[in-house]
């Protein structure tokens, strides 16, 4: 735990936490921060530019979209969608992935083989394709997006953590715990888990970045949270059709996604350095 506290001295981690705090505030207090209801349409003021540009309306600080909805309000409510997916999907993927990884790495043998083959099957699908197919089967909605991300991304945790568990399990103190009469469950929770925790936390923050991107992708394709809920991917899909009339509508959600992903990646990178985690980088 002291290592986690030590990481708070790293500039990267602090900057990242600051950014995440701001985005999280937007998500939590969206109702107070947004000047308009994100679904309110004003068909007399469609595609107005941001307030500072020529023809801008001060009551719509960042302009309106093709249905006359306030872009700023949709960005703020979009943060809520993105953060909900980031937090719950990555926690879900972490729980499934790390339980399977610990079981697999600790017990070895047939269980390890079965879980290993399961990961192989999952990995033979490009993640984007697998999540699309899952969304076809599940249908649209916020909960469905979270479930799809969990079902696709548990393998990231499982694969990386299993290797770590394998190394930790060979240490003498794990054998000593068994000799002292710890059950397998106690050994895993009290001896193995603390040693794999730094890697787990690092992976969790990187997974949050991935979840934000996946949510944006699914909403962009039209298979995300559903039309009634504002999402950055949806805003991009809408703005793409009117890119000549109002380029800001395209650039602002892109910026929002980029900053959110950057914050989580920066946090992951900072944690990796300060917690001294050796991470096999296999990308997204």
């Amino acid at each position: 735990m002291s290592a986690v506290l030590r990481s708070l001295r790293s500039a990267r981690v602090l900057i990242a936490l600051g950014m995440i705090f701001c985005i999280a505030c937007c998500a939590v207090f969206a109702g107070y921060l947004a000047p308009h209801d994100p679904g309110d349409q004003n068909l007399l003021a469609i595609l107005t530019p941001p307030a500072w540009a020529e023809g801008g309306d001060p009551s719509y600080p960042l302009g309106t979209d093709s249905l006359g909805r306030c872009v700023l309000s949709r960005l703020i409510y979009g943060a809520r969608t993105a953060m909900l997916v980031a937090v719950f999907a990555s926690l879900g993927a972490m729980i499934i992935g790390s339980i399977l990884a610990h079981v697999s790495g600790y017990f070895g043998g047939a269980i390890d083989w079965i879980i290993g083959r399961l990961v192989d099957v999952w990995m033979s699908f490009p993640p984007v394709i697998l999540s699309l197919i899952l969304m076809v089967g599940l249908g649209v909605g916020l909960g469905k997006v979270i479930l799809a991300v969990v079902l696709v991304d548990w393998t990231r945790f499982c694969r990386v953590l299993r290797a770590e568990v394998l190394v930790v399990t060979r240490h003498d103190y794990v054998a000593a715990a068994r000799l002292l009469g710890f059950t397998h469950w106690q050994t895993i929770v009290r001896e193995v888990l603390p040693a794999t925790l730094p890697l787990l936390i690092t992976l969790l923050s990187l997974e949050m970045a991935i979840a934000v991107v996946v949510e944006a992708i699914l909403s962009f394709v039209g298979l995300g949270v559903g039309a009634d809920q504002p999402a950055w991917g949806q805003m991009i899909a809408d703005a793409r059709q009117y890119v000549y009339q109002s380029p800001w509508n395209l650039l602002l959600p892109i910026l929002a996604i980029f900053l959110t992903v950057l914050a989580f990646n920066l946090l992951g990178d900072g944690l990796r350095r300060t917690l001294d985690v050796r991470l096999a980088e296999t990308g997204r």
Partner: protein
Amino acid sequence: MVTTVLKLIARRLLVAIPILLIVSALLFCVLRMLPVDPAAMSLPPNATIEEVEAKRREMGLDKPLPQQYLIWISDALHGDFGRSIALRRDAGSLVAATLPATIQLAVCAMIIAAILGVGGGLLLFHVRGTLLEPVVDLVSVLLLSIPEFLWGLILLFVFGVALQVLPFTGEVSPGLPIPHVAGFLLLDSLLVGRLDVFLSACSHLILPAVALGLAFSPTIMRVLRSSLFDIYHEDYIAQARLRGLSESRILLRHALKNASLPTLTLAGVQFGILFGGTLLVEVIYSYPGMGNLMVDAVRNADLPLIQAIGLTYCVVVLIINTMVDSFYVVLNPKLRVR
């Protein structure tokens, strides 16, 4: 060495067959969760209930799920993936018509990613210990945070909309003929001697390929750098230095060669993910590949087509993994003796 590689390919294929069977079964089950009736969808809306029932029997939908799966998989093995419900064409031939365009895009993107990744990795390694290191390092985290989907939109905006220097929709300019020889447009246009079509196809391919390449280069960069770091602790680097070799010669002739192995393994994994990433780039640039076909199929709940495309993506990934493993054996002398 040839026998080792052949043995490896044979072994990989043996593993691939059960994986494909399980994947196809999973695919089949997930898509059967849909609350749509393919029989009703393939008939006109004024069809009677009896007609729908007859169609269900004809399509085999009244049989139990495992039997339906066996029928589908045995048809698929004979090259029959069923008919697309929305497009009313053979799903297999639809996939075959769009797969080459996607492969062409993925290969070009991989080449760009490899060039940028190796260049950037060498740069990252070169600036180690200098004042530039934190700057370059931060830039690499920034780059890592822009997925292919955002690169696609950013490049479209900058080069297509703002600067208007490159085209950003379709495969060639409208009005130009699309020759069909092997299915790969760049190759085909050269084969039929249409340089104008070739140049148009190239300019249309630049933005999507660069967008994908840019998104996948940072991971290659970072892995190359960390394997270079590892290798510089090895004795043979110190020895090369004692022999008086120049630093650049040590880096390029000794270290890079050995650092390329872990990088190649990663590039293989990346290529599988990159192949999936083509889907988004194709949608953004209206590029007529398999990804666009997939998104249309998904929007229409076109089950036979989704199954055919899903399975194709999976087969391509397995083939890529096998190829990367074979390369690995060819390049790594330590693995040849076994």
